[in-house]
């Protein structure tokens, strides 16, 4: 359902934002990325978070969807950190 799809977009979005940071790239990808690529990944991450918002508002209504979006961001961020910790291990 909508919640799952939005959470997926949120996890991917935060995953991108995390990978776009120099200090986490070694753990996430095993190598560092050049700056232009970092910027593009960061923009993609931000875009994915906005896609999650669009999914929420379209599927759940504007007000309800906006509230749910914040919750999806929280779950997405938490799962991205979980992935990071798993890759570090």
């Amino acid at each position: 359902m909508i919640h799952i799809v939005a959470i997926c977009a949120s996890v991917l979005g935060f995953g991108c934002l995390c990978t776009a940071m120099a200090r986490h790239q070694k753990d996430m990808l095993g190598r560092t990325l050049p700056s232009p690529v970092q910027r593009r990944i960061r923009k993609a991450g931000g875009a994915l978070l906005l896609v999650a918002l669009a999914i929420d508002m379209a599927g759940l209504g504007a007000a309800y969807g906006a509230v749910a979006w914040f919750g999806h961001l929280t779950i997405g961020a938490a799962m991205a950190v979980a992935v990071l910790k798993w890759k570090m291990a």
Partner: protein
Amino acid sequence: MKESFRQSMAWLHTWTGLMFGWLLFAMFVTGTAAYFQQEISRWMRPELVATADPVSATQAALGYLQTRQPDAESWFITPPSARNPVTEVFWQPKKVEGQPPTRRKRGETSATLDGHGHPVTVRETRGGYVLYRFHFDLHYMPVLWARYLVGVAAMFMLVAIVSGIITHKKIFADFFMLRFGKGQRSWLDAHNVTAVFALPFYLMITYTGLVTLATQYMPWGVMANYASTDTFFEEVFPGRADVPRSGVAAPLVPISPLMAMASRSWGGAAIGFVQVANPGDSTATITITRAAETAIGARGESMVFAGPSGTLLDRHAPEGGALATQSVMVALHTGRYAGWGLRWLYFLSGIGGTIMVGSGLVLWTVKRRAKLPDPAHPHIGFRLVERLNIAAIAGLPAGVAAYFLVNRLLPIAMGNRAEWEINSLFLIWAGVLFWACARPQRRAWVESLSFAATLFAAVPIVNALAVSRNMLTGLMTGDWLFVAFDMAMVTLSFALGWAARKAARVTPKAVRGTRRKNKELTAA
């Protein structure tokens, strides 16, 4: 103060967080649980299996009240809903001339009915409702004091959030930073991560919590414009004056068409409650109010019908942008409008908040311990903080688990059963506090957390032995409440057990830091 703005905010954050940290932890635990208070209440009354149709249940409830309380001033009926299978009724007894209204004991003027208007025979329990009330009314004290205390705590929390944001200069750089096994730094990471990930939720929940009780905390806005609060309430929530009984008997119309009409006019929304004034009299009125679950902004739209004829007399809907904003704020806090998915998001955010407050409390002691002149013999203030941390973080969860266990263990016919369930929660909580004070600090953490973990693990087991519904039968029959509840108990048990194991393996680390002098390094 000669330090920078950021440093002063860091100091403010630490002290506002600590001063009310234990109360805030308790508020987070009970508030988080309150999002599922209906489900907890259903779990604690496993005898309730049937569901009920709200309209026929309301009609049946009216029949019950007509038989039992025909002379009451008014009747209040809360129909069953998706989350609550019973009908709750209460009534205002007829006023006796010349006597002030007596305070009736709970239960004397209320009843819980099934779909056919018969009182349900279930074990006496206050269920999840007690946890919800504790969140702002605490317990064993007058509610007015409790609400002031809770309001001060919420105000401290608001300042803690604001000062926390200001002082967390690496909020983006450290966004994904969670290092384990690094002592103080790990606790700070845990505190930062749980705080930042649900920051919009914490800001919202704290501010809207204050708004929910704003009439008590900040009556000045109303008092500035109105000489009497009654005038204000009459303007904002216009009601009909109490009409005395005419003495002419007249039966009430069937309620079903009225409920259908009200629901249709609100776009199919469910009914929240039904109120009958002067029942059985020719002056009787029926007020049907919209359920809070139906929309974020729903707050008390109602329709008033004449009792004997069913004619629509009046409709009330709160007007004005400010009032609508306030309604939305209260709704955001209570989450009554939320469906399943969003309700779980609220719950998980609440868990995040509980971990945030708890990790903050532990961080305070970990940081201070490093600065103690003699870490083996801390001064009494420090020892007090440590013991209160254990009592809050391990003791309250243990109390909640005990509350569930005792619900299954106490004899059904026991007098004051519900009161003793609640007392058990506080007795176990107090027990953990005393244990923590008696034991050496590290052992106290391990033992208290293990105790709480054991109690939570015991809940599904005792449940399976005591009643016929459990996780396995739930999986087979689609009784999802018992599946979810048991899984939640097991998860909490694992989490607390993991924490206990971590606490057992802690060795006091040598403090590393560029600004520490050598002589402050503590040996393991």
